[in-house]
């Protein structure tokens, strides 16, 4: 028996008025696969990403997550299916401490934070888990700092920590290395590679070096459509891909 794919798209199309940003995309990812969606600016990769997370409704087609049709599911309902995501532009709780940020993530996963009459610090198991998650991305010892005191690279790390809390089965990363320096990129791709191999990961990226460093599978988009899909080496040698993307890089 083959297991249900963590993510399956059938003829997904998203148009904004007359503009078709994502056009008839059919795609299925396998469990544990680390796919990178690559493409030049305006290729529709971020739009596709939003359709998968549910921030944008799709125009036609179906999206299945772990075999469930999620076309009508809200983003938070999709999260509860086991989907974790990061944001392209760092999206953190700016006025809270790192620990509070991660505590909220733990609660969100567990459908918690319903109590009114205990203090959040007194829930030891939640706080301990939050500390462990901070350790995992190398932010231990900074738990009590405010987010505003972090460097940009550290904010990206925290962004990843929030997505990893509670062990998502499908992880969606939206340009995780955007805005990082060369050395920070290397450290960050290390963190991404360290994500447990049972987590299916889909990464939207336009930086080729990052893409080739982390991908098991490269999916190349151009003008809303998939133009190539396969192992990185194979994709690199495809002439069509070289023309639209790699050629001018």
């Amino acid at each position, binding site marked *: 028996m083959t297991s249900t794919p963590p993510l399956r798209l059938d003829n997904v199309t998203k148009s904004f008025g007359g503009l078709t940003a994502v056009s008839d995309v059919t795609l299925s990812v396998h469990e544990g696969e680390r796919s990178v969606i690559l493409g030049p600016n305006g290729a529709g990769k971020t739009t596709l990403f939003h359709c998968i997370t549910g921030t944008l409704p799709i125009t036609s087609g179906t999206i299945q997550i772990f075999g469930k049709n999620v076309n009508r599911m809200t983003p938070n309902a999709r999260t*509860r299916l086991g989907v974790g995501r990061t*944001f392209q532009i760092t*999206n*953190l*709780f700016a006025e809270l401490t790192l620990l509070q940020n991660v505590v909220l993530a733990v609660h969100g*996963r567990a459908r918690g*934070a319903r109590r*009114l009459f205990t*203090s*959040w610090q007194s829930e030891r198991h939640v706080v301990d888990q939050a500390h462990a998650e901070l350790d995992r991305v190398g932010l231990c010892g900074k738990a009590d700092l405010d987010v505003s005191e972090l460097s940009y690279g550290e904010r990206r790390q925290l962004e990843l920590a929030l997505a990893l809390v509670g062990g998502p089965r499908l992880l969606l990363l939206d340009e995780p290395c955007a805005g990082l320096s060369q050395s920070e990129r290397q450290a960050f791709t290390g963190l991404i590679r360290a994500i447990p191999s049972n987590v299916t990961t889909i990464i939207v990226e336009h930086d080729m070096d990052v893409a080739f460093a982390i991908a098991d599978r490269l999916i190349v988009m151009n003008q809303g459509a998939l133009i190539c899909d396969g192992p990185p080496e194979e994709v690199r040698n495809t002439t069509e891909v070289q023309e639209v993307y790699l050629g001018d890089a």
Partner: protein
Amino acid sequence: MSMARALRMFGTIALVLAGVILLITPYAGNPFWTGLMAQILIFGLLALSVDLLMRHTGLFPMCNGAFFAVAAYTVAMLEVNYGVASPFAALAGIASAGVTGMVFGVSVRASGVYFILVTLALGQLVWGVSVQWTWLTGGDNGITNVPYPSLGDMRIGSLTQMYYFVAFVVIFFTLLYRQVIRSPFGLSLNGIRDSESRMTALGFNVTVRKYVAFVISSLFAGVAGVLYAYTVQFVSPAASSLLISVEAALMPILGGPGTVFGAFIGAVIIIGIRNVVSGFLSGWPIVMGLVFIIVVLFAPKGILGIFNDLLRRSDRRDQAADAARKDVREAEQ
């Protein structure tokens, strides 16, 4: 003595002084001051109910005065027209504010400026009812002769007793409020304030949480409204006017948004200006406006914010000095 220690001492003295004033006001011999202090406490609690949404959830409500008025009118009507026993009248008052909150809560579907406008419109609805439905609310005459609350044979018989009752209830609900803010639920409200999209991505139902916060806010406003009806013993459309909602929002802004004491400091300033300055200056709203402009421009974190910033800065300076001294000592060795 370091700056930080001096500031801490000042803070402690101010707190002790506030506690002493709270305790002895009725013995100052002037019922005016007792009534004024009671109002400061009541409006401080109303200000907290606004701050729960404004500072902690990121919503700016313009209808908490309406919850306050609904509760006050309910108590006054039940006590004066129907002679309902005080505990039931008080509970009915709080419940009616809560029910109003549950209905008005649909406004959390709107965000930003639209939320402000929707709550403004809903709040004005209550004001309209209090002015126009004379048969129910007494119109501009309001409802007079609300008795002090009683429980069986025990009856609050004087303003002094009423004052202590108000102080007790306000302190109790302030502690409860503080607990709610520090709870996991309270933390999730802060998360909503900072980033709704992130909260959604983490699996939270943001709309439901905002709705619950809105209803909790209306309950706290209702408690303040019940205390108001019993203390002032008179409820008129003044209780439901927009001014109440606006002032209740200004109090935490002036005192220090997000802090429990800030709401009460703001209440002291606004109630003080309204009642004391107006005694010798007919242009007192100008004073209020000036104070507001100065605080917002020069102390966006409110009066308590100035204090906290000073404290933090001098703490850091002390730490830096300690570290430097340690370096010198180590270098000498």
